[in-house]
């Protein structure tokens, strides 16, 4: 596979392999991708506020700054395709079309939460939209994603499964077993490593013996190393498209390393004191939304005024949504005894 290099916010890296990208598929307007990213950004910004107000129970891990990966990949998935994410999964659920209100109800413990109030922030799921769940054990969902792709191969249903995880996750055994099995069985799955440079508080460079957590591991599974600027939604989209088409062709899995940065802490409870303020400041200038807005303005696709207005409008929508959901009754305790089995019950004995 040809290995050109491209300059990203993290300096020179290998260029995405887009040899397989087909021209016939027209890219949706960048403006549309911008709007999707913006809605997710504003949704999570609101969640951040609500958490600080003590209204979100349990931890919440935001993807602020990583939206281009969720939106870029989701933009090349069809309704029949599957995706799975982590505790940092709000963006991935929303990018597939999960309703903002049902997700917020879940986060705020109100009736009608998308997981019935049982899952919370770390387990947002919307099977109806092809999003098969958010999982909170690092790496635990990667074998599950492989199993979904295995089912697609057995049934020849043409579906592709996308699986998102972080840079730190490449060090856990489940990652190794799952990517290896997918490669041995040539399964239609696209592994997307969101390399935000940190495993919780520890810089990824301190805990890997190679430069790139995913790309430098790919050859161990007979896969090509692929690195993409994860803060460039168009680049993510092109790279994902190539990987998805390869999967649909039956040529097997891809392991994509998308370089990004989380603008906030590991979770809303983390101030991120372990990071150099200059590093954070530099990353802010590469905020995928800022970059895209600038590009849209330059290309004349959307004026600065228009994007400012859009931001204000979406922000207002999220404020209104929060007010509406907070007015709803909280989830009912008795429901805890339901839904462990598919018959709706939870009893283990007679």
């Amino acid at each position: 596979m040809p290995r050109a290099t491209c300059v990203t916010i993290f300096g020179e890296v290998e260029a995405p392999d887009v040899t397989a990208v087909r021209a016939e598929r027209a890219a949706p307007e960048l403006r549309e991708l911008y709007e999707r990213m913006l809605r997710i950004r504003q949704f999570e910004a609101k969640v951040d506020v609500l958490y600080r107000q003590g209204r979100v129970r349990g931890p919440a891990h935001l993807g602020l700054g990583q939206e281009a990966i969720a939106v870029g990949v989701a933009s090349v998935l069809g309704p029949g395709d599957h995706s799975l994410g982590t505790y940092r999964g709000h963006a991935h659920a929303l990018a597939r079309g999960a309703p903002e209100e049902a997700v917020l109800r879940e986060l705020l413990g109100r009736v009608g939460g998308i997981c019935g109030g049982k899952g919370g922030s770390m387990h947002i799921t919307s099977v109806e939209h092809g999003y098969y769940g958010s999982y909170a054990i690092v790496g635990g969902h990667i074998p599950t994603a492989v199993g979904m792709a295995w089912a697609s191969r057995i049934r020849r249903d043409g579906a592709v499964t996308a699986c998102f995880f972080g840079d730190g996750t490449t060090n856990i055994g489940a990652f190794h077993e799952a990517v290896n099995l997918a490669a041995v069985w040539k399964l239609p799955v696209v592994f997307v490593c969101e390399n935000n440079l940190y495993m919780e508080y520890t810089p990824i460079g301190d805990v890997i013996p190679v430069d790139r957590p995913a790309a430098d591991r790919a050859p161990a599974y007979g896969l090509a190393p692929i690195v993409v600027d994860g803060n460039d939604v168009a680049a993510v989209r092109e790279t994902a498209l190539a990987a998805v088409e390869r999967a649909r062709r039956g040529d097997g899995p891809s392991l994509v390393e998308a370089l990004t940065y989380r603008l906030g802490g590991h979770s809303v409870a983390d101030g991120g004191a372990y990071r150099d303020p200059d590093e954070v400041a530099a990353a802010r200038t590469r905020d995928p939304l800022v970059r895209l807005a600038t590009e849209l303005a330059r290309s004349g696709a959307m004026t600065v005024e228009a994007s400012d207005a859009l931001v204000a409008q979406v922000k207002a929508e999220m404020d209104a949504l929060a007010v509406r959901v907070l007015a709803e009754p909280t989830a009912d305790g008795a429901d805890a005894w339901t839904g462990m089995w598919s018959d709706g019950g939870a009893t283990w004995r007679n």
Partner: protein
Amino acid sequence: MAQLTFREAVAAALDQEMARDETVVLLGEDVGSGGVFKTTAGLRDRFGPERVWDTPISEQAIAGAAMGAAAAGLRPVAEIMFSDFYATCWDQVANEIAKACYMTGGQLRMPLVIRGSNGGGLGFGAQHSQSIENWAMCVPGVKIVSPSTPDDMWGLLAASIRDPEPVLVLEHKALFGTKSEWPGGDHVVPLGEAALRRSGEDVTLVGLARTVGMCEQAAVALADEGIAADVLDLRCLVPLDAAAVLASARRTGRVVIVEENPGQLGWGAAVAAILAEEAFDDLRAPIVRVSGGNVPLPVATAMEAEVMPSPEKVVVAARGLLEGRVPAASTARV
């Protein structure tokens, strides 16, 4: 009538269900060549490589692949060769599969089976002989099946494959060679119904898998002493047929629970606790357990026998109850 071994019963149940439902697929290490216990013999030849998949040595990927395939609507049957190896994929079993349906508000379904050998008595040592039904019972969200006869092995595995929930089927490796009559046609035994293998009014002997036979042998010996025993085969730990245990205990007033897993925290403790809470007034004697010893399993013949339950230990325990003493036979204390 044709004879059926416990080993053949596993393959027969898989064969029956694979023929009946094309969404049933198998995966595991060496399952294609029949498996180390020959429990999947002949299946790849009959159903082909798209239904029977040989995997790398990757238990996390095996259990996870089963989970994903189930989420996608198939009915995978994964083999974990020795139940001790559940430890290498415990996250997939205890944290993912058991919780997926509940924590997603019912959006995910897990119609899968994980099956394989369990238990000791053959000198396989500390890492290949454990009875891990107690590990599984610690985790709400999975059903637990462990048959005691070839006939049940077939019927309960078939029912497990048809069940909409994740089911762990533990096949006692010391039973693979045992025989029973070949059951007729489409054979299914419902989950959650204990079987009364023998009845008597003096004492209730409760067993699972291999310990059921020990209870039956003990009952025969006790009969010679004029002690009549109920022998209850639980068959499943989840769903547990607690009603059957309670009913028998209320009748006899005396209970000996015979479990192979370590008594320190074995399934027998769960049964004893239920009885102590719900049948207290009807009990005429202490609830006694004959349990696996609280040590890793040794290999030398006499040592392994020393820490395993046995018909003799059951007889001593039951006799003690009738004579009004808590018998020394209980290994739960060691």
